[in-house]
């Protein structure tokens, strides 16, 4: 659906996070005079092109009390400019056989179109236009605020699992804005105004705060000429400063949450630990955590938690572990269990902790590590099949401050992670003091 939040996109990306060292020659970068970074990812297999513009501003950059404004503005970006009527951009893209959408995350907001390669000038012209020339009428901003509230109703408030995760994140971060939901807290969303959205727009929507990614059947020469023509004349914003967000204090106390909702059918246990992210020139710990997540809970049949709890003690229906280090600031490492029929959440937690303790003692199985490496190499090849996927990978990496080199080194770093590094990362991150354990169960407590 239109304007989906990035939670989905991130989850989809979490498995194949890969680089393209073998195809390094087809990546070209340049910067326009007004500060716009441009990346061209060539793939001439099909006459298709993807344009993405990534703004280095996401919900974690919002002013306190204005939660949801980054995402709200994302919606409003479809409302027209001096030369385009509301909805016209999407309509023109559609009328030309293309598709378009946008998404907001903690660290960035991105807009994209996918269209026949010969229509690249059309979409570049329109995307450049709305970077600086947005117009919002009185009707548009009010109706769209209703739409984002309906989006919150649909994605969060209608889904106990989403409410649960929102509460977990809020408890995980003592100080950092990752604790505030991307879509916003409802009571703050309801008060967002046209002026709030425009202030956000004027500050961040500018060539010197954006990266343009063009992927597919286009040559760097052509893209450069078009970028100069359409994006070149745009004025940079004077207010863009390096992003320095507040940081977490030491987390000294383990937190526990119990969420009860009559709509819960399947009790669930999850635990999140504060975890380091990928940083420029420093991605080894993140790579080790990526492997650790796969080893602990990647596949129910072969992972440590799956083998112990789904096959061994039969205390779980499913188990999982997840980690995505592609973020600007400290992220989380997550594990969880859906207990088997008749197994209480407390018993499931005790069992999970026993499995973790055993794992920390015995270490990662070398054969499993070898299989994970093979999968990572295979996933690298499979991922080259998707033009959109490649554009996502480079755009997201650059938006969180990585360099092209970091993005392309990632695959090699993943492949070279050793068993010792995995275990060192596990011991560093699996620290209960920096964790939140959440229990979700069926109950009659009012939710609204």
């Amino acid at each position, binding site marked *: *659906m239109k304007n989906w939040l990035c939670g989905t996109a991130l989850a989809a990306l979490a498995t194949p996070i890969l680089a393209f060292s073998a195809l390094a020659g087809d990546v070209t970068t340049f910067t326009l005079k007004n500060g716009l970074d441009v990346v061209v990812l060539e793939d001439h*297999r*099909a*006459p*298709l092109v993807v344009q993405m513009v990534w703004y280095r501003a996401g919900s974690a950059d919002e002013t306190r009390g204005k939660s949801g404004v980054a995402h709200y503005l994302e919606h409003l970006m*479809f409302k027209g400019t001096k*030369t*385009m009527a*509301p909805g016209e951009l*999407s*309509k*023109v893209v*559609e*009328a*030309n*056989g*293309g*598709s378009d959408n946008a998404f907001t995350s903690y660290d960035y907001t991105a807009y994209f179109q996918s*269209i*026949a*390669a*010969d*229509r690249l000038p059309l979409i570049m*012209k329109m995307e450049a236009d709305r970077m600086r020339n947005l117009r919002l009428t009185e009707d548009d901003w*009010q*109706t*769209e*605020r*209703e*739409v*984002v509230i*309906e*989006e919150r*109703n*649909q*994605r969060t*408030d*209608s889904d106990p699992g989403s409410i649960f995760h929102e509460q977990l994140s809020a408890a995980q971060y003592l100080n950092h804005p990752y604790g505030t939901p991307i879509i916003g807290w409802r009571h703050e969303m309801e008060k967002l105004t046209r002026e709030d959205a425009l202030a956000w727009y004027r500050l961040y929507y500018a060539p010197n705060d954006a990266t343009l990614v063009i992927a597919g059947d286009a040559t760097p020469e052509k893209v450069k000429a078009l970028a100069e023509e359409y994006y070149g004349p745009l004025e940079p914003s004077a207010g863009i400063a390096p992003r320095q967000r507040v940081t977490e204090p030491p987390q000294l106390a383990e937190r526990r949450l119990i969420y009860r909702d009559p*709509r819960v*059918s399947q009790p669930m246990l999850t635990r999140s630990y504060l975890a380091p992210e990928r940083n420029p020139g420093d991605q080894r710990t993140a790579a080790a955590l990526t492997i650790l997540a796969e080893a602990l809970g990647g*596949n129910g*049949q*072969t992972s440590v938690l799956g*083998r112990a709890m*789904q*096959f061994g003690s039969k205390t779980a*229906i499913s188990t999982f572990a997840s980690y995505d280090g592609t973020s600007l600031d400290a992220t989380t490492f997550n594990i969880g269990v859906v207990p*088997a*029929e008749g197994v209480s959440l407390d018993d499931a937690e005790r069992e999970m902790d026993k499995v973790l303790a055993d794992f920390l003692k015995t270490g990662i199985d070398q*054969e499993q590590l070898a*299989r*994970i490496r*093979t*999968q990572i190499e*295979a996933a690298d*090849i*499979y991922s080259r*099949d*998707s*033009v959109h996927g490649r554009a996502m990978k480079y755009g997201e990496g650059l938006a969180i401050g990585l360099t092209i080199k970091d993005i392309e080194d990632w695959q090699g770093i993943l492949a070279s992670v050793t068993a010792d590094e995995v275990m060192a990362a596990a011991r560093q991150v699996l620290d209960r003091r920096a964790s939140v354990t959440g229990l979700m169960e069926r109950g009659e407590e009012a939710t609204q």
Partner: protein
Amino acid sequence: MIRTVFAGLAAVWLAVPALAAVDIQEVTSPGGIKAWLVEDHSLPFAALELRFRGGASLDAPGKRGAINLMTGLIEEGAGDLDAQGFAAAQEGLGAHFGFDSDNDTLSISARFLTENRDASLELLKKGLTEPRFDQNAIDRVRAQVVSIIQSDAQDPQSIAGNRWARDVFGDHPYGTDQNGTVEGLARLTQADMFEAKARVMARDRLYVAVAGDVTAAELGPMLDHLLGELPDKGAEFPTPPQIAMRGGTTVVDFGSPQSVVVFGQHGIRRDDPDYFAAYVLNQIVGGSGFSARLMDEVREKRGLTYGIASYLIDMDLADTWQGSFASANEKVAQAVEVVRSEWARAATQGVTEDELRDAKTYLTGSYPLRFSGNEKIANILAGMQLQGLPTDYVNTRNARVEAVTLADVKRVAKRLMTPGDLYFVVVGRPVGLK
């Protein structure tokens, strides 16, 4: 004045882009297995799609859920490998297998690296021809399916979809959950799993599509080895359902701030001469883009929902035209009213010349863009075979869309859209709806 800028541009770009033709080869193996192939040797892997027509509708009487459960067990142990051994072997090859079923089709998707092709297909063959259906695997996967059934029972989207299907299709497999029931699943045995496999996984209903790093010469022997040992014949296909389109609205009480709505009426057969006109009509009324009337009226103009779309659903034995959206409990009655009135407006007045032109340019322009990447191509090829389309359909399809006239759409809207039959299921605590 606002629109003039792009009116000029659009005119220049409206011509259907000249896209490279997708070259579909029809391959018949020495053993007589037919397949469609698109070769692409730029990446060292291939995507293979297998389809068995009938899917979960072929459940034997009293065994609802058996085929779905069996599908989940194919990779849970085969030949000399138990479930964990099978999964480890797959990981060690970097291969990826997926197994899925719905009420028309059992689908198997495989991706494998060229360097590991033989070993990957050998492993997949084990799953297809020597599944073990070990009792402990049955118990484990059955518990997962039970968990899904219980989750669906608390999920407003599933509740709405299942209720709509039950009311429309009754006792036919299309009207019941392919997962089965908790009680029914408890009675399924290992023998039922072997029986379920024999009913659906047979060569007389098999369709094969491959895209990627495989040549036509290589493919034949590959297919004979992989699929040659499957039985020739499966179970008889069920008869079509009696469809009851009742009109009106059913409210299912569910405690949530938002109501989920599923609505629909009769559809149109894929081989009906009016199918393309209906397809274009649906794009105009309920397409997922922002140009569609429902999206414009319900979301853009009134802010009543985050998203709304409708679809022509062509199943093997029935055709429906369904849509879905969610609205706050206080707003849902108004949203339902808008949908009803848009349905009636289209039925009586048809669409405009501009709408028809935009829908056609979208549908013809977007079609070639679907053919990007081995996985997408293999999926499309499998779907075309299931629909009984010829390989040259990829070259004729856009001409058929182009041929649709305003009069066609108006006639089909009048013929097909029956606002009185439009049946709504609303799950939530809607204000002002009963």
